[in-house]
Each structure stands twice: as C-alpha cells, then as structure tokens.
C-alpha cells in the first residue's frame, strides 16, 4: 500500500518514493559531467554518417551529407536538451494540459479547443501534404525526436516528467504544426474589438476618433515616411450602413500587458566601418526557463546556417549564413475579427448570411482530464470560424464576446516551415523575398542584410485587404461585405530595400505612413522604441558591431522625456514637504535613462501609473471598456491641459490637471515609502522592477527571481518584470560572416545541468557571446569540446 502510494502523484506533490530515490528520481537528473555523447554512436534511421560537435557554449553543430539526416539530427539533439519543453508547449497549444495537470486546467484546454487550435493544426497539416519536400523535413525531424525518446529509460526522463509524473509520447509532424500555431496565437491572438465596440456605444464615434486614433499622435513608421507605392491596390467594398452590434455589455477582467515587442535593424555598408552591412535583432517575449530559443548550427548538402530555433520545429528561425542575415519583429497587424451571427432558432443549426440561411457545423472536442472523467465539448463553426464563448459562459480572457464567431488568420493554412527552410538557404535579396511568399501567420517584420550589400525589410505575412476600420469593432456576420474580401497581394506588402537613409528598422510600430493604401489595423506599438533606434542610426557613421550591442542596451525612456517636464512644472507650485522636495530634485535631475541604479525611474513609473488611472478610470475604467493610449494621454497633458477629461466625474467639484498631478505624486511617494521605506537603495529601478525568468510551467524553485537590470517595456532595452529581449543577435556580413548573440537561459532544459541558465549572467551584464560558425566539420577554432561521429545502425 505504502509503495503504491509513494508511486503515485498525490495532489500537487510528485510521487515521493520514485521522486526521491537517488537511482531513479530527481537526483538522477543531475549532470555530473559535460560530456554529451560518446565519440562514436549509432542511431536507427540515419542514411549516412553524421558529425555532431558541441562547442564551449554547448551549442550543437550538425554536419550531414543528406538533408534527411540533417533534420533527423536536429530533432534528436533538440529533444536531448528540450524534450519536456517541446512536448509541454504543444500540449498547451492543443488544449491538452488537463491530461497532465488535472481538472484545474480544463478551462484553459477548453479555450484552446474553442479558438480552433485543433481545427487549425489539422487543416494546416493537411494542406502541407501538397509540399512533399516539407513533409519529409517534418517527418525526418519527428523521427529524430522519436529516436531520442526510444533511448530513454524512465529514470532518464527529463525532470518535469518526474515532478508531474507522466511520460513522453511519440512526436509527430502534427506537433511541429501545433508549435507554430502556439507561436501564431501568442503573437496575434488578441483583439480589442469588444472593448472598442463598448467604448463606441458608450461614447460615440467622435470621442473614439479623438481618443483612440488609428494613426498615432506621433509616428515613426517602419517603412520610411514618404515612400511612394507604385501599384494598384485590390478593391474592397464597404457596407453602406453602419452596424450597431448587440453586445456592449460588461465582461472583461484583466488586460494583458502589451509586452510582446521586438527590435530589429540593418545598416548598409555605406554607414559601417567594414563597408559591409550590419544587422541586429532582439525579439521580446515572455522570459522563461527553459528558454523559448535553442541555438544550433545546421550544415547539409545545400545549406550551412546558424541561429536560434524553436524547440519543436525544424530549421533556424532567426540567424545567418555565409551570405545573408535575417531577424524578425512581430507585426501587430489585425488578423482577428469578431462576427455577430444571426441564428435561425435556438438550435443554431442555421445562420443568416448573404440573404440566405446557411448551415453551421460542429466539431466535438474530447478533453481528457487526469483523475477525472473525459469531457466532451462541442464547438460550433460558421464560415467565419468558431463560436469561442457560449452565452452565459465566463470569459477566459475578457476579450471574447459570447455567442460570436471568430475569424482568425491562424486557421488558414500557411507554409511557414517552407519560409524558414528557404531563408536558411537564401543567398541574396531575391531568394529572401521568394522565401517570404509562403509565409502566412504570425506576420513579422523580416529584416535582411546580405554580403552583396543589400539591406531590406518586409512587413510580411498574409493580410486581409480591409476597408478602413474593418474589424476595429464587432462586425455584422450576416453581411458578406464584412467578410475578408481578399488578400493584399504579396508584392504589395509594405517593404523597403536599400533606402536612401542607409538603414532599415522595426520595433512593432505602425508599418507605414498614410500613403500606403491599405488599412492594416488600429493597434500598433507606440513610436518610442522605433524613434530611439532611428535616432541612433541616423546620427551614427562608421558603425561597428559593438555599437549595435550598445543600442540594444539603450535605456532612454522617451515616454518620460515627453511628459515629465510638464508634470514637474505643475508640481512646482503648491509647497512640498522636505522629503518630497528630495524626491522632486531626483526627478528634476534625471536624464531619462532607466538605468538599474537610478531612483528616478521608480518614482516616475509609480507616479505615472497612478496619474494615468486617475485621469481615465472615472470614464473608461469600468469592466468592458478600454483606456486611451499612453501617447494620446501625454499629448493631452502637454497640449490640452484644460481638457474636460481631467475632471473626476464621480465628485461634485471640478478637478484640474495640476490637482490630479499633485494628488498622484503624494500617493506615489506615500506608497513607495510604505513599501520600501525612505528613499534609498531599495528605490533603485533595478531592485524595484526585479526581473524574473519563470519556469515554463511555473514550477517553483526552477526559475530565477530578483534579477537587477535596467530598461523597461517601451524602451529599446525592453526588459520588464517577466518580458524582455529573448535573444540578442548582431551579425556582421562580409567576406567572412561574424556574429554575436545571447539569450537569458542556457542550452539545456535540464535544471540539473550546468547549462540550464549559464547564459543569464552575461545576458544581464549586456554581453554578447561570439558565435562559432563552422565552415566544415573540422573548422573548430579550438572551441569544440565534444565531437561524436554518428553512423546509421
């Protein structure tokens, strides 16, 4: 009985007997040596011998004679270091976490099924069958993962399997697709349609236009302003009558942090010391352990490429080869809309569209739950997409209108696998553009630089050709003119090649100025990061790679610079207490850099948050609404300080902006003092912000807390509390390509390995590691610690 109970997971504890046994339990996951594999090894499924070398940063370099063997080995080595993560992420995408974690995850799983993840992944995999080459790449990768799994005894399972007490299952190409859908949802699965609809019905179109402008107050578009577009846009027809959605009801609970941003840029040889282009990229994502990225070099018959991959998908996602370098930032164009459907009756078997009744269809989702009976959930679809939330159900994310159908680009099959496969092999601008054609979702700003001295940036993906503001609010599902009527042709996507200014850059901001004929969406990142990067690049010449590292670490807070002087002026009038005077002085002397050791960023951050909510919460703070943006608020503070919005409508008297500013300052000082004591070291920005890198499944003890760094969201060095630069890379093109990079984690996904988090300290200090790009399998520069010759078995 005791043995049996120590063999089983009890509540949230791992099965203790199995887990603590030093021969089989967690102790077994401690890696006492750096040795990865023996010098010789045989594997089932290889066609020809392969050379596998691990360098001094534990990065694998694979040299294969056959393409099949290259992706087989990528699957094998990635699984060796990241098996649990690969499987967990695909389980998360597929809505299968309750199988591992029990009934608490049912709601999460149901949401994943309702947004059509299973539908999207299966549809995409079916479409991929037409591309035999990619099918064999995915199959080879999967076979490699499975070959690794087959070598594992339960005692050798990755740690998390032991903690959560389950076993890995076979890998399939479908799981690779799930991983890409997981990324697609992470990067495009948000919408403000419901909230904007509520704001519209409460305040009317005039206020929406003034407070929620489609074109931000200040812009710094990705594509240089003034660019002329020499093409005839496809036609879009707009409904003649405005639609008034029926929702406008109270729902939402929380607002996700707008933290998924990124920077990338490339500078042409005319502005660099070497005369060849330089390229930089740092995608900002959730900071987790194991890290989202895995570094690897892949060399095969027609390819030799280095960079970071996503564990679970073949090829390199961000990287370089001998001829080109490329990187990505998220597009933030709107590719998710909500449709109000008109059903014929309560059975909802038919809905009204284009003046006729059309049939809905249903998909039954089987959600298995650990320790409980399987739940069947029926998801209903119209031609728009799934009904994500049924009437009366609680919103999972607070942005989902009940009873509405969701149109999401992620449901459309794309061939992103091919895009990266071809980018890995591209040698020039034409091949880079061709690679981008098969890419659908999640749209990215693909920055590019080549040995031929070309630089370019494509805002790339598939975009619905919308009429203006289509999808900003909830749409009338019965009117065919609200459907996505077509696509922006690929060659008409915003792009720029070798601009006169000698550089290209992107930071998730609005892609173009108003000359671009298509409407892409209303919610892009504000100008701050883009403007700061462009300021650097405009004013620098003779750039060397280390300059790019310095720019990536830049902590200038343009938001503070734009508003703090005005706030301080308003604060100066009524008398301040002695302690407040000290705080005031610190702010007055601040140079607007959010450096870790400075106190001013902490005070400003607290003060701004309180003030922002004091201004807007009385009108827009109700659940279901959304607040005007930061930049729009600053514009009003600076340019229209007498605006009626500053009055608190809940009080009898009329408040003025200086009164709000003063009250917010008092409150900020008071709160900081009560949490941190009198102004001192504890107030320093790095300590106050305290970045953490959490374990992917939030298992306590396996993450890192309290990291002290500068920067913040909206700053080039976008390191927030849980978000930040997930991979910093600088590539120097030329006769010999050179590159540097780092990510906040380590190559191994095993917390018992020295390489679980060994990059973190350098990342924190803002250092980049020199990446070892091997031209041949013997080109080791003295940095290869472990070489294995692998033969087919």
């Amino acid at each position: 009985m005791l043995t049996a109970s120590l063999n089983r997971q009890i509540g949230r504890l791992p099965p203790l007997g199995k887990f603590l046994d030093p021969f089989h339990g967690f102790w077994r996951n401690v890696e006492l040596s750096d040795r990865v594999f023996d010098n010789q090894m045989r594997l089932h499924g290889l066609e020809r011998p392969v050379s596998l070398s691990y360098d001094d940063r534990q990065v694998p370099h694979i040299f294969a004679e056959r393409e099949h063997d290259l992706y087989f080995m990528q699957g094998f080595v990635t699984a060796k270091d990241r098996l649990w993560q690969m499987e967990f992420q695909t389980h998360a995408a597929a809505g299968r976490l309750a199988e591992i974690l029990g009934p608490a995850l049912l709601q999460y799983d149901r949401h994943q099924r309702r947004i059509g993840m299973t539908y999207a992944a299966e549809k995409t995999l079916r479409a991929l069958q037409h591309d035999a080459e990619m099918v064999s790449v995915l199959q080879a990768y999967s076979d490699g993962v499975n070959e690794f799994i087959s070598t594992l005894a339960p005692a050798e399972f990755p740690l998390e399997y032991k903690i959560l007490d389950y076993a890995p299952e076979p890998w399939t190409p479908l799981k690779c697709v799930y991983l890409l859908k997981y990324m697609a949802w992470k990067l495009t699965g948000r919408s403000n349609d419901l909230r904007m609809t509520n704001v519209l019905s409460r305040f009317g179109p005039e206020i929406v236009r003034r407070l929620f402008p489609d074109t931000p107050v200040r812009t710094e578009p990705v594509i240089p302003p003034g660019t002329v577009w020499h093409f005839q846009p496809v036609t879009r027809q707009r409904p003649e009558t405005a639609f008034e959605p029926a929702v406008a009801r109270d729902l939402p609970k929380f607002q996700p942090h707008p933290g998924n941003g990124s920077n990338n840029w490339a500078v042409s040889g005319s502005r660099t010391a070497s005369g060849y282009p330089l390229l930089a990229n740092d995608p900002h994502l959730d900071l987790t352990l194991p890290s989202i990225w895995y570094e690897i070099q892949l060399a095969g018959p027609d390819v030799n490429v280095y960079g970071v991959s996503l564990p679970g998908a073949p090829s390199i996602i961000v990287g370089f080869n001998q001829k080109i370098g490329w990187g990505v930032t998220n597009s933030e164009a709107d590719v998710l809309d909500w449709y109000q459907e008109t059903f014929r009756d309560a059975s909802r078997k038919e809905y009204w569209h284009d003046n006729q009744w059309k049939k809905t269809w249903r998909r039954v989702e089987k959600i298995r739950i650990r320790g409980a009976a399987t739940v069947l959930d029926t998801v209903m679809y119209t031609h728009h997409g799934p009904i994500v939330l049924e009437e009366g159900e609680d919103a999972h994310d607070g942005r989902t209108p009940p009873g509405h159908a969701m149109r999401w680009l992620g449901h459309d099959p794309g061939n992103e696998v091919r895009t990266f496969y071809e980018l890995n092999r591209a040698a020039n601008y034409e091949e880079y553009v061709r690679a981008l054609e098969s890419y659908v979702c999640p749209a990215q700003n693909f920055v590019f630089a080549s040995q031929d001295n070309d630089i370019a940036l494509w805002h790339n993906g598939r975009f619905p050709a919308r009429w203006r503001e289509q999808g900003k609010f909830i749409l009338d599902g019965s009117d065919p003119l609200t459907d996505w009527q077509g696509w922006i042709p690929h060659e008409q996507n915003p792009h720029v090649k070798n601009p006169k200014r000698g550089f290209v850059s992107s930071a998730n901001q609005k892609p173009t100025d108003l000359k671009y004929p298509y409407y892409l969406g209303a919610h892009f990142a504000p100008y701050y990061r883009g403007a700061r990067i462009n300021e650097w690049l405009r004013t620098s010449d003779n750039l060397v790679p280390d300059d790019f590292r310095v720019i990536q670490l830049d902590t200038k807070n343009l938001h503070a610079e734009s508003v703090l002087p005005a706030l301080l002026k308003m604060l100066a009038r009524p008398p301040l207490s002695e302690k407040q005077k000290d705080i005031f002085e610190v702010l007055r002397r601040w140079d607007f850099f959010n450096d870790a050791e400075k106190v001013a960023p902490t005070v400003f951050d607290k003060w701004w948050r309180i003030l922002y909510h004091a201004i807007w919460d009385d009108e827009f703070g109700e659940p279901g609404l959304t607040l005007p943006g930061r930049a729009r608020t600053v514009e009003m503070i600076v340019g229209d300080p007498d605006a009626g919005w500053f009055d608190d409508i809940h009080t009898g008297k009329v408040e003025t902006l200086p009164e709000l500013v003063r009250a917010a300052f008092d409150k900020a000082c008071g709160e900081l003092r009560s949490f941190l004591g009198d102004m001192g070291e504890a107030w320093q920005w790095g300590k106050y912000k305290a970045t953490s890198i959490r374990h992917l499944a939030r298992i306590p003890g396996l993450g890192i807390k309290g990291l002290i760094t500068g920067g913040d969201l909206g700053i080039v060095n976008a390191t927030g509390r849980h978000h930040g630069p997930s991979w910093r890379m600088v590539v120097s093109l030329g006769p010999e390509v050179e590159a540097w990079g780092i990510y906040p984690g380590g190559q191994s996904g095993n917390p018992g390995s020295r390489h679980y988090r060994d990059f973190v300290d350098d990342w924190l200090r803002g250092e980049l590691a020199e990446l070892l790009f091997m031209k041949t399998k013997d080109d080791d520069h003295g940095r290869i610690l472990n070489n294995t010759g692998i033969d087919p078995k």
Partner: protein
Amino acid sequence: MILNVLIVIGLGAVAEWFLPWWSIVVVAFLVGAWRCDSFRDAGVVGFTGVSILWIAVASFIHFSSHGILTDGIARMFQMPAAWMVLLLTALLGGAVGSLASLTGFLFQQLRFDGNRD
C-alpha cells in the same frame, strides 16, 4: 545485524541499478523475511540499510554537483535549505525500507505459524 544492513545496501544497490525503484522494497522485504530474528531487528535493518544507501548516493550527487539541483528542489518543496532534501531522502528511504523489512518479517512469522498448525 551489521551484516544484514550491508546486504540491504549491497543487494539494494545492484537491484536499483538494473530494476525500477520499488526493487529496493523487494530487497528489504526479503532480508526482513529470511535473515531477521526479531521485529525490532527487521525494522532497524530495513531503515538503516535503505537510508544509508540513499543518503550515500544522494550526497555523492549533491556534493559533486555543488547542489546544482538540490537548491531548486528544496524551494519546490518550500524547504529553507538544501540539506533538508538530503534528510528527507534518507528518512523516506528509511521508512520505505523499514516498512518493507517489517512486512517481510511478519510474513515469515505468519508462514512459520501457519506451518505449525
């Protein structure tokens, strides 16, 4: 008794090397059944044997890895220090061992009584 403890450690190490974790239960059970003369003897032999085996291997791993994983596991269990994980390993191993060897001893007594009737 010391010999019996050594047998648990030796046989246990071999069994655990090749077999699943519960093989240690079988070893302690067998030693309790065939080699122990008293209830107390069986309990002490099972407890000491398995806890020494487990703490020895765990300590080797802990110290040669500078506690790379033990700290995290301690935090996961909400324990303030890594050595408590070592102690927990020893105590749990001891508990498993003594219960197994006691069961073995009682089983043997039962059979012996049964034979007499």
